[in-house]
């Protein structure tokens, strides 16, 4: 009877509403209309805080108007629904527009609860939920010095971190006696508190705010019930969420006692044609404040509308997260409330680690866990808990430091129903199905199942399961470097080191085949340089190097080279600047300040390079390695010496580090930066190694990246003194040099490293592998054997012979031609050329 498309109207375009649209649009025959109260389409609230670390609203967007158009979804922003006519099946928006529906999906989410404290509506009293909120917070933070978060739960602490990063003196005020009371037990909460206080955030528990009034030193004064008070400029309320159920209330849908639209297992409300999903929905008297259960509801609803039978049967609320650089995890029955259960606790005060597992009365099942300071066992524990996998005989072995052999949970032991990605609810079975349908690697599994596209926390497990299943199918995951070596770069590194191999010829003779190629030769050259640090242009090595290294300069498009002398930290004396200027003028070189805080001279012919470098070296300069896969620059701000905000001498540190690591050959280029305070003028968080001065020392960030795929560095350690900082960098970098694949930056390397950041922390901080002394010695060897390659080169007659265009003539390459632009040279192009190209017309017939 009904040949017309069914009309589906979705109220709210948050994360869950959008996920529903995505699911529903897979099925033909439905006309989907989205009504969104916000002025933009769905964005990623889970990563909202990254807005402060540089993500834009566009980066956070989960969809675009173009995408909705493409999949045929109608959408209206600034379209708040204010009226539902259940009988006529029509909704009306604030602007008075009406939309008829066959099925209505409520995905209105929730709003932050602000306790009814007198003064709560004062200026600079804000919440933390939408992009608009974040813009308001940013504006308020500019005018103030102190910020308070009311509420010490998960979101509250995330908000506190944001205030701290905005440079405010930060406080957390909590009504309960501990932080994160939902997820953590008392001892876990206590450790978290002391760690957070260690970072400089002040925590006040058991404080009930009675009123907010004018302050004396700050904008506000918060008066507490116990008579104490606190002055602050900004207040953020994060005291829980409340479902947006006002429409349901007004138009008579069943509600829970404390709010929330009541739904059944099919996500249906009390009205046959109305569904509710996400944070506005109340299932089994429970509101799920996480995105994953909402996604499941969205899927169930779409399935139900097309006549399917899927049901929502609850969701796991386990969480793992990093708060201000502190790892925290909570699984299942964290508070050990199950009848007859028993707990095992491991507590390590010096290293600030607390772990607890809760097991069933018979000791066979894992019921819950609390992890603070170290969550490396989270994935395995979660799998035990979710899948009822029988525990080993001594379950405490699961959380004890790995002194003996640790019971490991092989991915093979996981049942097909095991959830691998909880954000997108992807099971091991789904991964196997994707492989059955032709996916051949993790990348394809990701794009077909969407696993990993939520919080990203499942990446390591996802890769393990995929690789394991592929291996079972006999698919070989080739890690061979190239056709000449059946080894990965890491394996070659070990071979070179263990067998003391010093030349490519010997390596390929003993361990490879053929003559080598443009992949294995430079890779070997880099390994040899990292291990032995010989002069890279020794006759044995010269034919292995990439062109840039062969002539110690970056080859430009016309075959000329750039000349980049090192300027540690971007510091340069006027005398050196003058020499650079003179050289540039004499050789007519294009001169530019680079993105790496130094000066680049372009357009030098190969035959001019030695003379140019001789001038620079005589004036006290040295090579900048701008051509090598090696340390580029250590960018820096002037720091405490000049800047009125500076906390430490960032210039001195930058220069020290650049001098220490210059010349280190590595799998890819390495960039550093040092900022003198949290304002981060040197943009250290976008560097492989980023260092930011604090009041007490240095915070170390690792594996950041600018370039093609920007990544913010991960906070690795805080408040380090000079010696420890250098030690950590020595170990981190040398481990990278040893284990990364060729042409892999530290960012990608870390992301692919099994165990990730937590594993690196164990190695570098706790000497988990017992190799730290070796790593430091190896680095020291590189430092001690440093030589300026250009200096060695210009002192060698034999080397100089190579720097000419022709073996049989002293003329120069007439294809290199320049024209003038903005008073400097640039390569001539096409028609502008007078000689070169016509002479060199390519003769295809002789091939």
């Amino acid at each position, binding site marked *: 009877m009904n040949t017309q498309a069914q009309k589906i109207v979705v109220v709210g375009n948050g994360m869950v509403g959008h996920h529903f649209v995505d699911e529903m649009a897979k099925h033909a025959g439905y006309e989907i209309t989205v009504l969104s109260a916000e002025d933009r389409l769905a964005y990623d609230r889970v990563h909202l805080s990254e807005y402060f670390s540089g993500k834009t609203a566009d980066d956070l967007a989960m969809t675009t108007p173009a995408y909705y158009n493409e999949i045929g979804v109608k959408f209206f922003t600034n379209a708040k629904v204010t009226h539902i006519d259940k009988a006529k099946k029509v909704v009306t928006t604030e602007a008075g527009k009406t939309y008829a529906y066959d099925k209505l999906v409520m995905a209105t989410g929730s709003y932050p609860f602000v306790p009814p404290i007198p003064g709560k509506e004062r200026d600079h009293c804000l919440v933390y939920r939408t992009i608009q909120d974040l813009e308001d917070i940013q504006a308020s933070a500019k005018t103030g010095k102190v910020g308070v978060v009311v509420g010490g739960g998960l979101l509250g602490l995330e908000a506190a971190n944001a205030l701290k990063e905005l440079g405010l003196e930060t406080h957390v005020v909590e009504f309960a006696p501990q932080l994160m009371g939902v997820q953590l037990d008392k001892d876990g909460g206590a450790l978290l508190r002391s760690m957070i206080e260690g970072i400089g955030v002040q925590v006040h528990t058991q404080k009930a705010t009675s009123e907010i009034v004018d302050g004396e030193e700050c904008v506000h004064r918060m008066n507490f019930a116990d008579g104490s008070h606190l002055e602050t400029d900004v207040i953020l309320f994060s005291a829980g969420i409340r479902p947006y159920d006002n429409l349901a209330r007004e138009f008579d849908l069943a509600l829970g006692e404390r709010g929330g639209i009541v739904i059944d297992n099919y996500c249906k409300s009390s009205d046959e044609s109305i569904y509710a999903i996400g944070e506005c929905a109340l299932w089994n008297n429970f509101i799920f404040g996480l995105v994953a259960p909402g996604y499941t509801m969205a899927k169930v609803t779409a399935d139900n509308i097309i006549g399917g039978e899927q049901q929502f049967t609850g969701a796991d609320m386990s969480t793992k997260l990093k708060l201000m650089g502190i790892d925290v995890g909570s699984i299942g029955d964290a508070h050990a409330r199950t009848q007859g259960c028993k707990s095992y606790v491991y507590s390590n005060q010096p290293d600030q680690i607390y772990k607890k597992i809760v097991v069933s009365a018979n000791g066979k099942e894992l019921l819950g866990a609390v992890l603070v300071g170290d969550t490396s066992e989270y994935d395995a524990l979660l799998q035990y808990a979710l899948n009822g996998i029988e525990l080993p005989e001594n379950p405490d072995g699961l959380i004890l430091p790995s002194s003996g052999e640790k019971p490991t949970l092989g991915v093979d032991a996981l049942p097909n129903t095991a959830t691998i990605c909880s954000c997108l609810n992807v099971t091991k079975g789904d991964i196997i199905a994707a492989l059955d349908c032709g996916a051949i690697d993790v990348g394809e599994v990701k794009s077909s199942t969407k696993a990993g596209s939520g919080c990203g926390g499942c990446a390591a497990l996802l890769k393990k399961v995929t690789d394991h299943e592929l291996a079972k199918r006999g698919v070989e995951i080739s890690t061979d470097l190239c*056709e000449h070596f059946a080894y990965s770069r890491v394996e070659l590194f070990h071979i070179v080191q263990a067998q003391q191999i010093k030349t490519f010829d010997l390596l390929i003779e003993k361990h490879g085949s053929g*003559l080598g190629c443009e992949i294995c030769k430079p890779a070997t050259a880099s390994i040899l340089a990292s291990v032995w640090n010989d002069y890279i242009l020794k006759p044995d090595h010269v034919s292995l190097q990439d062109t840039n290294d062969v002539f110690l300069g970056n080859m430009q498009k016309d075959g000329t080279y750039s000349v980049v002398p090192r300027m540690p930290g971007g510091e340069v004396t006027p005398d050196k600047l003058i020499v650079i200027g003179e050289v540039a003028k004499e050789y007519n070189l294009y001169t530019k300040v680079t993105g790496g805080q130094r000066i680049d001279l372009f357009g030098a012919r190969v035959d001019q390079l030695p003379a140019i470098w001789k001038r620079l070296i005589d004036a006290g300069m040295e090579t900048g390695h701008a051509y090598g896969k090696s340390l580029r620059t250590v960018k820096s701000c002037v720091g405490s010496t000049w800047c009125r905000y500076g906390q430490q001498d960032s210039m001195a540190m930058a220069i020290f580090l650049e001098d220490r690591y210059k010349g280190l050959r590595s799998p890819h280029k390495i960039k550093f930066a040092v900022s003198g305070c949290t304002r981060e003028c040197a943009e250290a968080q976008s560097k492989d190694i980023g260092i930011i001065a604090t009041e007490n020392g240095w915070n170390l960030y690792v594996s950041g990246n600018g370039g093609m795929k920007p990544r913010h560095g991960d906070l690795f350690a805080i408040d380090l003194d000079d010696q420890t900082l250098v030690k950590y960098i020595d170990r981190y970098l040398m481990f990278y040099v040893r284990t990364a694949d060729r042409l892999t930056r530290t960012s990608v390397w870390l992301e692919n490293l099994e165990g990730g950041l937590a594993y690196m922390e164990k190695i570098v901080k706790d000497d988990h592998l017992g190799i730290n002394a070796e790593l430091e010695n190896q680095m020291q060897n590189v430092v001690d054997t440093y030589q300026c390659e250009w200096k060695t080169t210009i002192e060698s007659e034999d080397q100089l012979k190579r720097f000419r265009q022709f073996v049989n003539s002293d003329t120069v390459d007439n294809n290199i031609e320049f024209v003038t632009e903005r008073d400097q040279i640039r390569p001539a192009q096409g028609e502008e050329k007078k000689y070169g190209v016509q002479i060199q017309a390519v003769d295809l017939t002789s091939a």
Partner: protein
Amino acid sequence: MTIENSWQTICPTTDLIKNSGVCALLANEEQVALFQIGNDKIYAVSNFDPFGKANVLYRGLIGETKGEVYVASPLLKQRFYLNSGACLDDDAFAIKTYQTRVTDGKLEIFG
């Protein structure tokens, strides 16, 4: 002026660099990239990279696949077989090759 093709003496073979390249200038101003592979095999191909449109091939890395030797351009990494000049990455391109011989320790090119 036209220049007839002929054998031209270029340099002593000791000026070549093993497993790497040097460049020679012919009488007709063509540039030739010269590669010595192993101890005695010598190849001569045009020095002009038809992709990057620059005289740079002699500075490329030497590689080998299935026994055939090639040079990878230092600019955008296209590979050319040294014996035929054919491009491994794009059928539409090839570079000119030259005959070579050694007389009294001196390298000669026909071009």
